[in-house]
């Protein structure tokens, strides 16, 4: 990544490499200091890490930390799968059929600005606080970006590709399968990437409001009981999984879409 201020043959001073390390160290130091001032409110970094290991490897509760992690992941993956399939389908319909787009898209545009979290009360009223509700909320969060990005692919597809295919003898079916779908595939992937992090966000939110297991549930229970340690551990996990999911998806992108 070429840095804007580095002009040409600029050599970075050696001590620049230490800056990230210094930064993290400073962060930990501030944390530690704040914890020492407030032992009741804030555990130190060391205590947090130790607690994390304890919870992972020596669980004392009936539902272990890993159980919570899996509960959250499971919900996201189911919702994400459903959202991707139906989202691509709807996006393609919007792009392929002008009539369908004209009639149905305004309804989508009306519902789109509503944050998925705002759907939670309504969904809970309809589906109770079971698995279905949480999957439904994740679904909404993931569905919207997939549709938006898929449709955007249609509007930005270079028309020359379509003309070229037509003169090469393509029929409608060929246009869709050989040109349009591969052509918008990068857009679909972009939508899926956003959808994945949106889904993770929604599952945590949904669990914080109505669940009996899951990382969101863990963090809200800990808030109610004032257990800062658990909150921090859950936070670390939530953040880490989010980062891992993004990372895995980027790797997947390179494999699936070599062009």
């Amino acid at each position, binding site marked *: 990544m070429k840095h804007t201020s580095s002009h040409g043959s600029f050599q970075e001073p050696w001590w620049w490499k230490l800056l990230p390390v210094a930064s993290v160290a400073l962060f930990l130091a501030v944390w530690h200091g704040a914890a020492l001032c407030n032992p009741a409110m804030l555990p130190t970094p060391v205590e947090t890490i130790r607690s994390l290991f304890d919870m992972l490897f020596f669980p004392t509760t009936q539902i272990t930390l890993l159980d919570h992690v899996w509960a959250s992941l499971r919900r996201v993956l189911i919702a994400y799968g459903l959202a991707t399939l139906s989202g691509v389908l709807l996006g393609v319909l919007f792009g392929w059929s002008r009539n369908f787009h004209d009639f149905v898209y305004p309804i989508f545009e009306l519902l789109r600005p509503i944050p998925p979290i705002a759907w939670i009360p309504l969904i809970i009223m309809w589906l109770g606080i079971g698995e279905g509700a949480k999957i439904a909320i994740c679904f909404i969060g993931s569905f919207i970006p997939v549709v938006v990005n898929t449709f955007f692919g249609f509007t930005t597809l270079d028309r020359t*590709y379509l*003309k070229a*295919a*037509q003169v*090469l*003898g393509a029929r409608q079916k060929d246009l869709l399968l*050989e*040109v349009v779908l591969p*052509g918008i595939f990068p857009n679909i992937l972009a939508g899926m990437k956003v959808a994945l992090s949106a889904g993770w966000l929604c599952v945590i939110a949904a669990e914080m409001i109505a669940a009996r297991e899951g990382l969101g549930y863990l963090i809200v229970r800990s808030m109610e009981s004032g257990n800062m340690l658990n909150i921090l551990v859950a936070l670390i996990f939530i953040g880490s999984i989010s980062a891992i999911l993004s990372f895995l998806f980027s790797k997947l992108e390179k494999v699936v879409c070599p062009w």
Partner: protein
Amino acid sequence: MVGDICVRGIGKAFPAEGGGLHPVLEHVEFVIHDKEFLVLFGPSQCGKTVLMEILAGLTAPDSGSIQREDGTPLSTGDLCMVFQKYALFPWKTCLENVALPMKFRGIPRRARQEKAMAFLELVGLKGFEHKYPRHLSGGMKQRVAIARAYAKECPLLLFDEPFGALDAQTRLQMEEELLRIWQREQKTVVLITNSIDEALLLGDRILVLDGAPASILSEYDLRDLPRPRSLSHRDILALRQTILSNSSLDSNRQKEVERRG
């Protein structure tokens, strides 16, 4: 086979900003002789691409028709087109790109891959079958596009300023390549260009397309000049002079006024 193609009375107008119609082509008429190399020469933005798209069946003309020798209208199945922007599908390898028109015709995989290989060899790109277009230079991409157009195995080939995006050196090479392929494959070719040198090097006939709205303003027959041509040949230089002086803005306007009577 299509034989000679008659282009009659083609007119096309587009909605203009602020209402009304903006005519781009008016009463375009000419004949495309079987197996000839016809060049349409004219400045940029005069409607050449619109004419090409009408010939290719991508756009419908407001008036006029394009007919084959037997009187039936020309259809997209009779022709193929090479675009200035190559339009190679980046998600397909070179081989897959070239094999595509055969895939649309329903030719089975093994057969079409063999044929595609042959066409890639024809354009001198053997060894690049499994590369993606993004790994190729501009000239190479255009060669793949040409191979792909020929792979449709149709009698008429349209070239819309195919070398406009290339540097001068590559352009010369590609012009020679195209000539070689045309002489070998014996298909009818219509090529649009705004380069007078390209027109003189390649064409059996040169039709000058210009004006607003555009129409065919003059025709030059080069069939007597031997190939391969040299741009410094006496006759060619004379012709170049003639065409350029006739194609100046004033004389074109003049001809338009005369033609409209």
